[in-house]
């Protein structure tokens, strides 16, 4: 049996990688994948706690998160495809029209 703390640590590491990915990468697709990484880190934490506490709640929650993630991917990819058609780029630092 793997101790809970290891699983939480792994989740935290994956989440941190996702955050750094969002902050430092320019490519919208990679940023998107980093967000997925963060969501899955959260899923991992849910499952770990569910098994530790012998409760199904956490596992059920994971399904909701996956559903939301799927919907988000559908919309997000559509946006990125449109963006590429309009501006011929997927680098977010080249798209900064909306500023004060």
């Amino acid at each position, binding site marked *: 049996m793997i101790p809970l703390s290891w699983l939480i640590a792994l989740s935290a590491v994956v989440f941190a990688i996702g*955050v750094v990915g969002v*902050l430092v990468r320019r490519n919208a697709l990679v*940023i998107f994948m980093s967000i997925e990484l963060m969501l899955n880190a959260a899923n991992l934490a849910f499952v770990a706690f569910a098994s530790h506490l012998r409760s199904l709640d956490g596992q059920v929650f994971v399904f909701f998160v996956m559903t939301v993630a799927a919907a988000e991917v559908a919309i997000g990819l559509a946006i990125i495809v449109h963006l590429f058609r309009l501006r011929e780029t997927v680098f*977010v630092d080249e*798209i900064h029209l909306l*500023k*004060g």
Partner: protein
Amino acid sequence: MHLPLLWIIPALPLAAVLLNLLIGDRLGKAGTTVLACGSVIVAFGFALRAVLHLAGLPESERHVVEACWTWMRVGDFSADVSFLLDPLSAVMVLVVTGVGSLIHVYATGYMSHDPSFRRFFLYLNLFMFAMLTLVLADNYLLMFVGWEGVGLCSYLLIGFWYERPSAAEAGKKAFIVNRIGDFGFMLGAFMLIAATGSLNFDQVFAAAPHVFAAGGAAITLATLLMFLGATGKSAQIPLFTWLPDAMEGPTPVSALIHAATMVTAGVYMLARSHILFQLAPASMEVVAVIGAATALMAATIGLAQNDIKRVLAYSTVSQLGYMFMACGVGAFGAGIFHVMTHAFFKALLFLGAGSVIHALSDEQDMRNMGGLAPRLPWTHATMAVATLAIAGVPFFSGFFSKDEILADAWASGHFGIWAVGIVGAALTAFYMTRLYVLTFRGPSRLSHEAEHHLHESPPSMIAPLVVLAVLSFAGGYVGIPFQEGGHAFARWLRPVMEAGDVVPVHHELSHGAEWALLLVSVLVALGGIGAAFQAYLQNPDLATSLRERFAGLYRVLEHKYWVDEIYDAWVVQPFMAASQWLWRVWDTVVVDGLVNGVGYTLELGSGMLKLFQTGFVGTYALWIALGVIALFFHFLR
């Protein structure tokens, strides 16, 4: 029971206004004429029917209230839109609709060449609506609606020819001066609400003797404030300066609004409130003195004016002074009697003057008239009747009413007021005869141009003149003196004038005294007429030499005692200076500073905030991440 249908009397002119407004352009000139005159004539018919109904009731029941709807209800206070017909409002409603109908008919002829024909009748009908609301209202609030309505129409009609700067200025002056009076009216009404909790005539008059101490400060102040309102509307000292300038309006307007009806609203209001005024003897004295002073002052100014309409305007101010004099000495009935006869002969004088002006292609200066009698026979004959009536020649209407006022002033012990009134009567006879002689008699002083176009007015203008001439002669016979129990007019008004807890004091004169007073006023009137004939017809050099002998006095009168100039220097200019200060300092610096300050502050703040909105998604993500970390520290610390 058969309904008096009072609401329909003001509603008819209002309906004509709305129709004229909506479809007037499709009606054309003939349609507008029929609509405008028809509505007022039919209103006269309804008024006559209602008054006949009233006359058929026993004397104690002559008080018909017709409630239409509750206008507002605030706490204990409520005001209705409801109309009151009693002998007092009956007189007023007949005069307003009757003289109003005649002037409407006259105006169709007088204004026939004016491009704004339709607009003129729209205003005129609106005026009729407001005036009828004023006289038929059964509470001070609805009366005030009419009061303001006639003020608005007066403003619109004085400035009817708004292309002329003088007309626009005169309209503004009338409106602003009236506002001062209206402010007094409102304050007086507020005091009545505070004391009696109502503005309904019946309730106020029933409560007044119980809530006000007779002669106390409260009732004196309230009545003086209401009298301030009356001085504005009825052109008395100190607010009379607007009326002579109001002559810039078309002549039918001068006849209808500034002679026969609107300017008598102040007298009507005083007569309506006589129960309140009788509780405040000090206010009555003020009314009498102001009335007498105005009568004399305006009569003297009238001596030295050369514009035919201005003479009539000052004459109107002077005659209104007589009406207030009557109210002040407690003879409210005599005041209303003079309102009626004055409406007849002054409307006739203005319409006759309008006929002369029309015939002479808009000449108004009497120095350029003269010798018109054979050329304008109808105008001349009717004007002569009106002149005799206003001068107080026996058997004409003005004689009866003016003499009654003077007799009442004497009988109530106001000998000084009586003396002023007698001098005023002599001056009235003099300046009116002067007007008549300069216009119709003597050699012609017409310009060649005017001589060429000279013509008698069309029948639509002559017919009202003739009707008014008959009324100016015969209108006084409802008030023949020397009758037991008062004359017919006084008996008719008695249910109103003796209503309430306060019974007016009767001053009975012996027949001998009454005859003596009568003789004095007749002699004075004939003396004034004779003197004017002597000075302006038989011996024209006399007028010139008199003018040269008293050049200083003449200058004072010619410049109307410089009242306008004094008001300008003491009231208007300081007011303008204060307004300028408020504009430049208070408004531009303080108010604008506050408003703009709010704007500048927001602009500065948002200028700093917008530095955060870079447009780069990465930056936003960084802020979110930092925010999350900050929240972590906050909650998990």
